[in-house]
């Protein structure tokens, strides 16, 4: 194991890593032959000779990268440059809550208990997640103790500077939110040059009793950057977890999102807006596992696809026998703008309980011509009218965003994507 030399053998997770390496050797990278990867091929991004551990650190100036932050609000920041922690861009804390580094959490004894209880407990054992478990060196560690409401959001940003000709990043995040605690997290991956980058990220989130977790993923990367995001969220009773994913760019983006509802009266929400063009590919692969009674889940994914873009939605809702009175809803709406764009969608329901309300709907369609005519007849130019309609189409995803600055930022990105200069805020 060549990689083993560079990681800490004394680490408490050494056994987990060894096992993960074995898993990866068995599983390997997923291929299109696997049902969950039927519409997404990794061939185009696995052809590069990625360097896994960058040789030297590169410092970034805040001015250079300010625009990638949600900078108009005060926040905790955990910033990585080429996979290495950047202390001068970051703002971490141990004051009442732990917002710090995975590498520290894995080595310092005071975190041992949390690591033992939570680390790698819900991450999948498939090839990609195992690869991350085996070789990831860094990431964010967030632990919010009981009854603590974190007053400002936590931003996790990963920059890649293009120092290496091709870089593989494997961030590993662990987020533990204890009873009654509340946290907001913003995550973003950004490449600063045109050198190929592949990020294989694994995030484990534990929302304990009555905790509230509000998670935002902003994906607006370059045409050369690819992202495989694996997020696992384990919820205990009466907790609320919301995940918003905004996918506006990147060569290939795959979002694996899994929610496990281990308790009663849990609420899970996952929403997404995807607006892509060129040859971009975005794949949302979601799973909600209803294990106990009286829980809810809401899924709402909107997609707008231009040029040669391809979109995939693969949503799965599993309702176990015990999970009576489940209320699960899933929607996926898509608009194809160009002749070469395509969308593959597969909303699945697997239901073993009888007293449930489960429904899903998905549509593929065009903008309503009469609505278009209405706007045009009132003097709104074609481009703007189109943009307004598309914004309206995706707007109900934004309705549940609780940080206004994020909403503004997303609105701006949407305007930019649609090539208009209007505010949308009526």
């Amino acid at each position, binding site marked *: 194991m060549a990689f083993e030399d560079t990681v800490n053998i004394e680490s408490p997770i050494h056994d987990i890593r060894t096992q993960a390496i074995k898993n990866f050797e068995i599983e390997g990278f997923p291929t299109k032959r696997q*049902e969950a990867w039927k*519409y997404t091929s990794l061939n185009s991004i696995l052809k590069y000779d990625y360097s896994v551990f960058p040789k030297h650190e590169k410092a970034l100036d805040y001015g250079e990268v300010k625009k990638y932050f949600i900078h108009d609000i005060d926040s905790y920041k955990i910033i990585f440059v080429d996979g290495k922690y950047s202390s001068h861009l970051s703002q971490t804390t141990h004051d009442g809550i732990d917002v710090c580094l995975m590498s520290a959490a894995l080595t310092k004894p005071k975190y041992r208990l949390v690591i033992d209880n939570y680390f790698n407990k819900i991450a999948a054992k498939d090839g990609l997640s195992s690869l991350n478990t085996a070789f990831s060196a860094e990431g964010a560690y967030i632990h919010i103790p009981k009854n603590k409401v974190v007053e400002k959001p936590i931003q996790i940003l990963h920059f890649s500077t293009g120092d290496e000709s091709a870089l593989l990043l494997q961030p590993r995040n662990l987020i533990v939110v204890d009873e009654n605690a509340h946290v907001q997290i913003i995550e973003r991956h950004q490449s600063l040059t045109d050198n190929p980058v592949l990020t294989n990220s694994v995030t484990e989130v534990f929302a304990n009793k009555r905790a509230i977790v509000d998670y935002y993923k902003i994906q607006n990367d370059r045409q050369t950057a690819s992202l495989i995001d694996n997020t696992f969220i384990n919820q205990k009773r009466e907790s609320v977890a919301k995940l918003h994913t905004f996918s506006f760019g990147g060569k290939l983006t795959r979002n694996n999102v899994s929610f496990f509802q281990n308790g009663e009266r849990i609420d899970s929400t996952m929403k997404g807006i995807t607006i892509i063009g060129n040859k971009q590919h975005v794949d949302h692969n979601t799973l909600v596992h209803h294990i106990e009674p009286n829980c809810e889940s809401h899924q709402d994914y909107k997609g707008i696809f231009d040029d040669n873009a391809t979109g995939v939605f693969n949503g799965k809702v599993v309702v176990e*026998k015990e999970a*009576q009175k489940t209320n699960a809803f899933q929607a996926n709406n*898509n608009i*194809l*703008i*160009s*002749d*070469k*764009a*395509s*969308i*593959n*969608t*597969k*909303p*699945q*329901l*697997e*239901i*073993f*309980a*009888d*007293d*449930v*309300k*489960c*429904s*899903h*709907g*998905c*549509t*593929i*369609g*065009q903008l309503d011509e009469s609505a278009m005519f209405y706007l045009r007849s009132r003097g709104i130019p074609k481009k703007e009218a189109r943009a307004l309609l598309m914004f309206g189409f995706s707007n109900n995803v934004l309705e549940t965003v609780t940080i206004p600055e994020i909403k503004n930022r997303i609105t701006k990105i949407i305007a930019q994507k649609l090539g208009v200069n209007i505010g949308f805020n009526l």
Partner: protein
Amino acid sequence: MSKYTEDDLREELKTKEYEYGFYTDIESDTFPNGLNEDIVRAISKKKNEPQWMTEWRLEAFRAWEDMIEPEWANIHYKKPDFQAISYYSAPNSKPKYDSLDEVDPELLATFKKLGISLDEQKKLAGVAMDVVVDSVSVATTFKKTLAEKGIIFMSISEAIQEYPELVRKYIGTVVPKKDNFYAALNSAVFSDGSFCYIPKGVKCPMELSTYFRINQAGTGQFERTLVVADEGSYVSYLEGCTAPSRDENQLHAAVVELIALDNAEIKYSTVQNWYPGNSEGKGGVYNFVTKRGLCEKNAKISWTQVETGSAITWKYPSCVLKGDNSVGEFYSIAVTNNFQQADTGTKMIHLGKNTKSTIISKGISAGKSQNSYRGLVQISPRADNARNFSQCDSLLMGNECGAHTFPYIEAKNKTAQVEHEATTSKIGEDQIFYCNQRGIDTEKAIALIVNGFSKDVLNKLPMEFAVEAQKLLEISLEGSVG
């Protein structure tokens, strides 16, 4: 007296034949178990088929040998041993019983509920029958009318002899012989089936049904159906029967091909009620069917199915909408009870412009059964203005069954309009209460609600089928509520 179970019946069926020696011993009608090229050749020879047909079968067989049994479906079963099956036995011409008194009383009770005439009952249960004058005369007049119109309706073996050009032209064009594992197996060993050809501009005056094709009764284990509707013609075809058919064949791998040429319309209705296994999930038929239709310009194919039988159902009647303005429809009710498993749905492949498809699927699961809908809607890049509407509703009864939905939607054209919606629910206690309150007992109330739930599909069935299908739903769900 201990309860007379279906197993006993099966046992009885097996032993009875030998006991009374009802073998038609003209020549050995059953081939030894196992499958190899010689068996395929022998089947072909037995049917006195032309050289091209033999070659065609052999090609399919060779392809089949390299194929693996598909495992993607949401069903679990012990795979059949393909070398332990006899691939040819003559149609069930031999009677199993001397009189109706010997038949399983449970079966007879079901017949009675379905309102099947005594003669038909005998026929279905496999009781030795005198010549039923009525039935023959019906069939004769029937055949005469068809002949006048130029409609060809016969068994596929006959058609291979009498109209080899037609069969050769169309067979395997919609379901290629190497299409999938079971289709390849069927192509290699199919024993018999139906062939139907409607000439240009002819509207078939009656519902064609396999039932009326007397003398060729008995669905073979590997049935092959080919329906060709020439330009501007119309045909409605009924397959199967509402009556429970106690077939001894464990494995059924049928292939149905429909070809609707320009402006033609084919309506294909199926009621499948094969032996579903007993209430402990033992026995029952494995039903692995490949059904596909091809629509040319302005053509329309409509599949309607009521699936209540079989232990395992694996069936996806599909439409290839090749011609512009063609229409595909799929209406399905799948009922599973006890340990039945169904993985069924449809594929709508939109290739032509302005093509439309509608999918209405109703799944009802009870007992410990698993019921899956699996569908594909594919809009190809040149299928401008394609339109699809899909609706899949599932009804669950009891908390030990499962309902699953696996819709695949692939759109590659920006003018496509695709809608899919699915719901899962149970029968509301308030609904039952409402009925109870008005003096309708729970069993009847459920029948009523199920009927309403499946109405969209039942309405699409031809009249005579619809009535029976309604009763069938009732019977299939009997005892599913405590």
